[in-house]
C-alpha cells in the first residue's frame, strides 16, 4: 500500500457486466450501452422499492448470462443501494443462491462494491465475485426528498437519481483481453458543509484522493 492506494498483485479481470435502466436513462447518450431498458419504471410491482429490487435481479441475471456463469460460480455478491437497510439489494438478490454482503456507499456503492469484489478475488478467497448496485429515482425521492406528486419546484442545480442497476463479475477466470483491476483508491470523507438535499453532487465532490501515476 502506497499513499493509501491499494495495489492488487494478481490484477483480477472483469469477466462480464450488465446494466439495466429506466425510460429516462434510455433517452440519454448511453442508451445503446444498456442491456435492458424498461418503459414501465414500476416494473409491474406495487411499490418503487420492489421495482428497484427487480432492476437488481435483472442486472445480476443478465451479467451471469453474459459471462456464461452459473449461480454456483459466483462465490460472493457485494450489493448495495440507497434504501434503508439496503432493502433493494436484499430483496433483489434473495432468489440467487449466492452469499451476500450488503454494502452502503450512497453514490459510491458501485465503486465500493467493485473494490471489495476485486480484493476478494485478488486475495484468492474467491474465484468470482459480483459487484452490484441499483438506484431508483422514485424510491430515492420518497426516501430522501418529497413524494412524487408533491407540487414543488426543483432548483436548477438539482440532480436526478438514476433508475437502473449494474452488475460486474470480477473473476480470475476471465479471458486475457478483459479489462483488469490494478489499483484501488478509496476516498476519505470530506464534509464541507453542503446541506442541500437536492445538491448531493456538491456534497460528494470534495472526496480526498491522491492518485500517484
Amino acid at each position, binding site marked *: 500500500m502506497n499513499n493509501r492506494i491499494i495495489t492488487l498483485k494478481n490484477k483480477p479481470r472483469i469477466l462480464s457486466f450488465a446494466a439495466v435502466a429506466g425510460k429516462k436513462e434510455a433517452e440519454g447518450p448511453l442508451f445503446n450501452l444498456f442491456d435492458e431498458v424498461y418503459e414501465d419504471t414500476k416494473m409491474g410491482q406495487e411499490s418503487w422499492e420492489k421495482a428497484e429490487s427487480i432492476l437488481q435481479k435483472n442486472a445480476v441475471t443478465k451479467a451471469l448470462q453474459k459471462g456464461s456463469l452459473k449461480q454456483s460460480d459466483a462465490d460472493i455478491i457485494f450489493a448495495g443501494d440507497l434504501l434503508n437497510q439496503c432493502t433493494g439489494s436484499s430483496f433483489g438478490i434473495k432468489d440467487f443462491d449466492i452469499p451476500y454482503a450488503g454494502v452502503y456507499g450512497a453514490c459510491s456503492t458501485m465503486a465500493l462494491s467493485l473494490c471489495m469484489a476485486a480484493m476478494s478475488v485478488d486475495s484468492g478467497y474467491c474465484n468470482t465475485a459480483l459487484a452490484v448496485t441499483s438506484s431508483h429515482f422514485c424510491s430515492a425521492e420518497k426516501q430522501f426528498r418529497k413524494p412524487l*406528486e408533491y*407540487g414543488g419546484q426543483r432548483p436548477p442545480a438539482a440532480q436526478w437519481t438514476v433508475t437502473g442497476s449494474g452488475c460486474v463479475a470480477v473473476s480470475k477466470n476471465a479471458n486475457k483481453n478483459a479489462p483488469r483491476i490494478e489499483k484501488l483508491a478509496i476516498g476519505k470523507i470530506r464534509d464541507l458543509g453542503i446541506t442541500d438535499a437536492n445538491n448531493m453532487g456538491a456534497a460528494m465532490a470534495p472526496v480526498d484522493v491522491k492518485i500517484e501515476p
Partner: protein
Amino acid sequence: MSVSKNEYDKMAKAASPDSPVVLNCIKAFLFGGGICCFGELLFFLYGLTSLNNDKIKILVPITIIIITAIITAFGVFDNIARHAGAGTVVPITGFANSVVCSAMEFKNQGKIMGVGANIFSIAGPVILFGTAAATVYGVIYWFVERVF
C-alpha cells in the same frame, strides 16, 4: 484539498445555475392570482344560491381543496406547480396537495402505518405551528378584548 467550508460554499454556489427569480415571480403572481380570481368566481356563483355568506366562505376553500386533491391524484398538479411555484404552494392548493401526495406515496405501506403515519409528513409543521400561533393570538385577543 485545502478549501474551507466558506470557500467551498461559494464555489458550489458559483457552479450552480441560479433560479430565474423574475420569471418565477411573474409566474407565481399569475398562477396565484388566477387561483384567487377563481375563488372570487366561486364566491360569486355560490352567492347565486340560497346559501348564506358564512357557508359560502367555507364552501369556496373546500371546493378548491377538492379540485386540488383530484388533480393531484391524476398526476397533473405537480406539472402545473413546477411552473407556478409559490403561486400554487401559498394558496390552500399547496396544503391540499401536500396531504394528498403524501397519502398517495405511502399508500402501499398500509392504511395505518403507511397513510396514517405519513399523510401529514409535509403538512405537519404547518398544522403544528398554525395551531400554536392561533392559540397564542387567541390568548392575546382574549386579554385585549377585556382591557379595551
